[in-house]
Every structure is written in structure tokens, then in C-alpha cells.
């Protein structure tokens, strides 16, 4: 039987500009999905991209990404990612911009 784990990395977190989820060790998993929900989004789109790392400190764009133009849900699917994962988020950063975000990470062996 496969192993499975969902972790809620952010819950209704207000973000402005560049943001990244906490580094997550996922070496046991073969596949991952970041679910991104924007409860509120104004002043521009929300861009999310998966990042990988050899050590949890230095990060590289993996290439998988998704965009939200307004409130709603999206996902980023990743496989063959090594041991570390995080999700970089680019949110509106002007004074009128707001993004209220929940991020789930679902891992499966």
C-alpha cells in the first residue's frame, strides 16, 4: 500500500509580493501536488511555482507552475523532485493588492 500525507502549510495567510512556503522534506514521496486556494485576491494575479533544493536552503525553479487571476483554487503537480520541496508565490505587492491564501501539500509514495 502506498504512503500518503497531506500537510496544511498555510491557512488564510495574507501575503504581499514574494513569499515561499516552509521548506518540506519529501524524499519518501514519488509525487506531490500543491493545492493553492486564494480566498481573496485583488490588485493583480497570483503566480505559484514549485521549487526544489539539494539541502532545503538553496532553491531552484522546478518548472511546474500555476496562476490565479482571482479568488479560487489551482494546483501545481510535481514528480522526480529529490528530497526537498517548496512553493514560491508571487502576489500583488502594491498597497491596494491583497492575497489571502491557503496551501495544502499532498504527498504520495
Amino acid at each position, binding site marked *: 500500500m502506498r*504512503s500518503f*500525507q497531506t*500537510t*496544511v*502549510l498555510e*491557512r*488564510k*495567510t495574507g501575503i504581499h509580493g514574494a513569499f515561499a512556503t*516552509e*521548506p*518540506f*522534506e*519529501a*524524499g*519518501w514521496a514519488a509525487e506531490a501536488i500543491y493545492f493553492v486556494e486564494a480566498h481573496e485576491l485583488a490588485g493583480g494575479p497570483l503566480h505559484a511555482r514549485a521549487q526544489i533544493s*539539494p*539541502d*532545503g*536552503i*538553496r532553491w531552484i525553479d522546478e518548472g511546474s507552475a500555476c496562476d490565479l487571476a482571482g479568488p479560487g483554487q489551482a494546483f501545481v503537480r510535481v514528480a522526480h523532485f529529490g*528530497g*526537498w520541496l517548496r512553493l514560491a508565490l508571487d502576489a500583488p505587492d502594491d498597497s491596494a493588492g491583497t492575497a489571502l491564501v491557503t496551501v495544502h501539500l499532498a504527498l504520495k509514495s
Partner: protein
Amino acid sequence: MNYTIAFPPGLSRFQPLPTILCYDDFDRGTNGWLDLKPNYRFEGFEPRKGPLDLTRWGPTMLSSATFAFPGTHGSMDGTYSLKLATRPVANPYEDIPAPGSLGHAIKRMAMHQPPGLLRFEMWYTYTPEQDRIGLGEKDIRAFGFLFDLQDGQYRYMPGVRYLNSVDGELVQRWQYCNADGVTDAEWEYGMEGWCKRGIDPQWFGRRYADGHTDGFKDVPDGAQHLCYNESDDKINWMYLRLTVDLEKRAYVEMQSGNRVFDLRGLGPTLVPGYANIEGLLNPMLWVETDTDRRVFLYVDSIVISMGPGEKA
């Protein structure tokens, strides 16, 4: 019924009581240990509002203990350990804990036999994120373990923590949970309501410059240097054991490394039971950072066991 049990060899480094409730080796998954979150049961699935933001503690994960220079450390027995992590944020020691300055792991069970002795054991280690040069030992403020218990009368949380550092100064002594003499309002930073003194001591209770808090008192002769090693990417697995007496609602003994601390005569703080949780048996671990740096508690394996009480 006569039966023979062949114990796995990994159990020989533990000292369990006769009934083993769980033997959690994190090479086999999370075994029910997960992040600690508040009760999302109010309008809009919001938690109760309080003086602390309980929604942003750092995430718990299965770790291979992989570092930039040595690569994968693995665990004591296999590849994976349970890793508790903080976010890179901390308030000064005497302030209310910053949101994200702690990470937790909790497992939820219920009582299944009459009160006797209850024992927690683990093999563990700790380190900060190796995001800067030097030795980061002083950046780990504390880590600890407690049982969240409720019987037919009382809720109480016996536990211990290792206070490693206070605002960058190494302290390195063991403390036990006890909030006697504190009011419920003092306990929750001036907010009197649902939470009672002695409950959730890892974040409630005022903190004082000498290192004690409203919820933690020093273990007698409890100063101890643990094996930290010479670099933040070299981890050494260590042993911790805590035994409590559910019949007397009292501490019995703790062991850290090769030192045994007699805790008889000491007790946790008893408060009237909360609604809906009679029989609660929740072991809980936490780690806390002392500065703007993630710190991690790695747990290779845990054994929780029960047995008859000590003879008077």
C-alpha cells in the same frame, strides 16, 4: 490464551512497561503524529480568538536529515525520522511566543486500562537550519514532551522540557510542567476563559528572565549538557524517558541519556476536566526557536507503554 511475542530488535534500546501502546518507528510513516492545530469550529471555520495565533506553528514532516555538506544523515534505525520544525521567527524570551516560533507533533489516543504507570520514551536529536556559518546550538530555545491527560475528574499535562537557551545564552537544564499558584487569567496572558492554568504550557504562562515560566519549574539537580556535536549538520541520537503515575496523578522518574532523575513527590497541576475528552491520552512533542532561525527536533522512534502502579 498462551502466546509468544517476538519483539523487534529495535525495542531492546527502550525500557517499556508491560503493555506497549505504540512503538512508532518513523521509517514506517507518521504513525498518527501530526501538526497541532486549534479547533476550527466557529463561524467560517475560524478558531477561537485568543492572545496567541495558534494557526502558524511550523510544519512536521518525515525527514531523511539531509544537509548541504554531509548529505543524508538518515535516522538511527533506517532513513526517516519525524521532524518538528519552527518558522524562522522568535520574540525575546520574556514575550508571548511569536506565531511560528514553535513546531509540534501530537498523537491522539484514549485510555484503555485502569490507571497505573504511563511511560514515554524516544530517541531524538536536534539542530538549527544550517543557513549561516558557525555553531547554532544557542539558537535552539527549548524542546519538550508532555502527556495531555483527562480522567473522570481532572485534566492535567505532566511533561518535561529541556531549556537550552534564553536570548542567546545557554542554560541547558531540565524543567517539569507545573503551574500551581497561577490564576487562569494570568496563564492566558490576561484573558480568562476557556483555557485553564497548566494546560498547553509550551506556549501559555508568563516567562521570566531566569528561564522559568508560570508553567515550568526546574527539575532538582536538572542541569545537563547534551551531546550537540561540533557542527550543525552532525546529529547524535539521544534517549529520553518520562514515567508518570496516573493513579497518584504524579511524576515518577525521568531519564535523559545515562542520567536518571527521581521526580517522586512532584506533580502536575490538576484542573477540572474539559467537556468531551474524558479518557484523553495525547502524547505531544514540541521545539522552540530562540531567534530568527528555523530549528528542528528529529525523532527516530517512540515507545509509549503502561503498567501497574508502584507499590506504596
